[in-house]
């Protein structure tokens, strides 16, 4: 009775098609709304003949790349035109599997429109803005990848913040004591791995609610590092424990010489390169290898994995320890890669935002890095907002990415797929 099965598949995909159609149209309307917004808010505010000037060197000088100067109104109209074309195409035909790529393009165009408007009649250092974006994205992306490692194995990890903070502290002390950045880095990674192990013990062996376990770790980490910091390493007599030094900037030969792109992407300390490396590595490991298939099966359907002879608990321990090590590595960025010392609660919520980047990025390393870059951009922008001629307080610009996250999570674009079994302790009998 093969006709039956064919008919069933046909029927089923019809239901899915309807759902996809609705998503497609919602997305198209979103694109059109962006276009209309640019026309109504930005374009009407700009006088004809006014020019926008973007500086293309992070340093501010114009030695390597010339400034980019263009008429503001024309470009705004062009951007809005492209957005409405994309929106119309999306509503009528849809971009299919390229939809998310097009969404990213729309976001970039919209932000570009915003900058054009904000800079109209003045100048903005575009290269500097983007360079800071990449830097700010590092801890968020590394945090997100810590989350991905744990959650793909079914363990929710909201302790990324605490793991990062602890690792920042430990790495500072060890690097100072041994006068070696590498020792500090390793100590930080090990500290993160140990905290992952603790999270694993609590949530796998003792089946503590994973949110509670993570919260406990966060509170503990904040308390202990703040205490040790204010009691010891911030004091003058212990100053030698808080002088770890910093990883130096690496200028990649040839690539860093490319105008505009070079300074933005190829002239950083090792953390930026490590971020790109880990994103590629983790994507490959998760989706192309046996290791990744097994890890994901445990996060999706642990019982199925168990019946096929996969050791669920061992896999989960491995996931949280690796996730902890990733958070530990991210934590050392704060001390060894960014400020060269430890300060109380210096992670300032970046671990949590990393978690948001993970969700925004649909539990995928590449998507999470995209989210990390988006958040990093607004971070960078809000720091510079006072230099822009816009009547928006910098705090509001800082809020924008999180508003976007809420909208995405509320399902306008379609809910992401969280690992199905995350947060549920697996019991054999």
């Amino acid at each position, binding site marked *: 009775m093969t006709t*039956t099965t064919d008919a069933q598949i046909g029927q089923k*995909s019809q239901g899915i098609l309807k759902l996809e159609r609705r998503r497609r149209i919602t997305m198209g309307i979103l694109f059109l709304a962006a276009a209309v917004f640019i026309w109504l808010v930005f374009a009407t505010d700009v006088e004809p003949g006014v020019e926008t000037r973007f500086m293309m060197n992070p340093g501010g000088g114009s030695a390597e790349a010339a400034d980019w100067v263009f008429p503001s109104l024309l470009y705004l109209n062009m951007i809005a035109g492209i957005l409405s074309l994309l929106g119309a195409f999306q509503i009528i035909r849809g971009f299919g599997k390229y939809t998310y790529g097009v969404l990213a393009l729309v976001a970039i165009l919209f932000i570009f429109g915003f900058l054009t408007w904000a800079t109209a009649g003045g100048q903005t250092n575009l290269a500097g803005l983007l360079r800071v974006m990449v830097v700010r994205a590092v801890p968020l992306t590394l945090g997100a990848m810590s989350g991905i490692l744990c959650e793909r194995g079914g363990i929710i990890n909201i302790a990324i913040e605490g793991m990062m903070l602890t690792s920042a502290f430990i790495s500072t002390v060890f690097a100072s004591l041994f006068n070696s950045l590498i020792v500090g880095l390793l100590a930080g990674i090990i500290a993160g791995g140990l905290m992952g192990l603790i999270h694993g013990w609590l949530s796998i062996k003792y089946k503590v609610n994973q949110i509670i376990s993570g919260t406990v770790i966060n509170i503990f980490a904040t308390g202990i590092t703040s205490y040790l910091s204010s009691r010891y390493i911030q004091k003058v007599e212990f100053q030698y424990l808080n002088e770890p030094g910093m990883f130096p900037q690496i200028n990649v030969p040839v690539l860093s010489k490319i105008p505009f792109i070079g300074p933005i992407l190829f002239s950083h300390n090792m953390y930026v390169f490590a971020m790109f490396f880990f994103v590629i590595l983790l994507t490959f490991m998760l989706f192309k*290898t046996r290791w990744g*298939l097994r890890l994901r099966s445990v996060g999706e359907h642990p019982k*199925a994995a168990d*019946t*096929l*002879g996969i050791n669920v608990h061992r896999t989960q321990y491995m996931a949280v320890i690796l996730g902890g090590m990733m958070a530990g590595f991210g934590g050392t960025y704060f001390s060894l890669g960014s400020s060269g010392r430890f300060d109380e609660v210096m992670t300032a919520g970046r671990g949590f935002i990393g978690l948001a980047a993970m969700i925004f990025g649909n539990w995928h390393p590449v998507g999470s890095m995209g989210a990390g870059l988006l958040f990093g951009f607004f971070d960078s922008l809000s720091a510079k907002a006072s230099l822009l001629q816009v009547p928006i307080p910098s705090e509001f610009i800082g809020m924008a990415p999180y508003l976007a996250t809420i909208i995405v999570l509320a399902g306008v674009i379609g809910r992401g797929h969280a690992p199905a079994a995350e947060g549920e302790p697996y019991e054999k*009998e």
Partner: protein
Amino acid sequence: MAPVLELRGITKRFPGVLANDHIDLTVEKGEIHALLGENGAGKTTLMNILYGLYHPDEGEIFVNGQKLDVHSPIDAIKSGVGMVHQHFMLVPVFTVTENVMLGEEYVKAGGVLDRTKAANKIREISNIYKLDINPDAYISDIPVGMQQRVEIIKLLFREANILIMDEPTAVLTPQEVEELFKIMHTMIEQGKSIIFITHKLGEVMDIADRITVIRGGKVVGSTTPAESDLNDLASMMVGRDVNLEVEKSESVPGEVVFEVENLKVLDSVGALAVNDMSFKVHAGEVLGIAGVQGNGQTELVRAITGLLQAVDGDVRLCGHNITHLSPRKITEIGSAHIPEDRQKDGLVLGFPITDNLVLNTYYLEPNSKSIWMDQKSINENGKKLVESFDIRTPSPFVPARNLSGGNQQKVIVAREFSRPIKFLVASQPTRGLDVGSIEFIHKRLIEKRDDGCAILLVSTELDEIMQLSDRIAVVYRGKLLDILDAKNATKEIVGLLMAGIIPSEEEKQKLLAKKKQILIT
């Protein structure tokens, strides 16, 4: 030659229960061995022991004459034992290939998956056993019958020789069951052996070479289809004589009590689960809704009981339009509901039986006076109902959690029947129950019908639908394909409709004639 599989004296105790009591079982090469028993008889426990998911307290397992120590499924898989679980063990977001090779992956250097090679192997197996599987499809996109074939491929991929199939027909249409039986025969021809776990007598007679009956954790007998008949098997399985037919008189339908018109309901992901359904239920009749699980029945029931908002259409009860009323209002008009998931939607498991018996009347006199509950009245009510509905419990004050499935269901039936009702929605009223409880509940439903109550029976058990209904409506992918008079319906006709195939008048007549012929002979 030693038998392929031999279990000797397998015993397993759970706290308070002897799940398996010295069970012996022998399976010969190339046979389909049916393990027959009621829900809760200990069949699944036994097979989980064989598969290494549980550890037996006593007993030994021999495969091909070799003693086998199973500590985990890996040991079972290595010795050639494989299991198709009742609830499929498939990852919905993985492809067929990924699911099949999980745990036994084909890899290139460095642990990189070799999907192409695995997919080719799956195609090969699929051709040998005529399974018709696309290795690149995602599990979430393929129908249940095909998912089951993926489970079978998983075992064949691991070269299992002994296949355990746990209630494999529960989720299938009658035609899919036939397909499955064909596949099972092909597997036997290829030299495999099958243990077929079921509580459905008819299927055992159709396919088994040998039958072992389990009751209360013990083997009560062993036979073959040739040496026994349905009634023998039923009484062996239940331990007393059972009447397989439900006794009921011709229905006397009255006026229309309940009516659904052009109803549309969305499911949790926003897809149209109920697509333009219309039907009427008269006083004093049972309208059965037949269909394979997941064809919109759940959403239909939730919409007409007020638990889910319909997006379009009307629901009318006794002249009131109840489409957008709250569940309490609908209940007060005279509707009762036996929900599909009794533990989640039917009872508060932590509450005592007495409180569970007043969940829909606790705020009314005499259970409450102004804002105060009258515990004495509630307790009286509880004691009375426990007695009249034969709810087996040490006391009416124990938590509902401690009752067996059958007694939990009786609590729900007692609660819903203890007040005057005009309309009853019974969704899967006997799922997972023992034969005694099934008989009890069927009898009560027919009594209610004869009292003039309109009953909407939703069931995926075709036998139950055929036994109780006066008219049968068949749903498929959210649509109501046809409403048949029970007199003009046969299992084959309903089965075709359940698979989405609408038979022509001619075909219907032919199938109906066949049924009459069988009845005469």
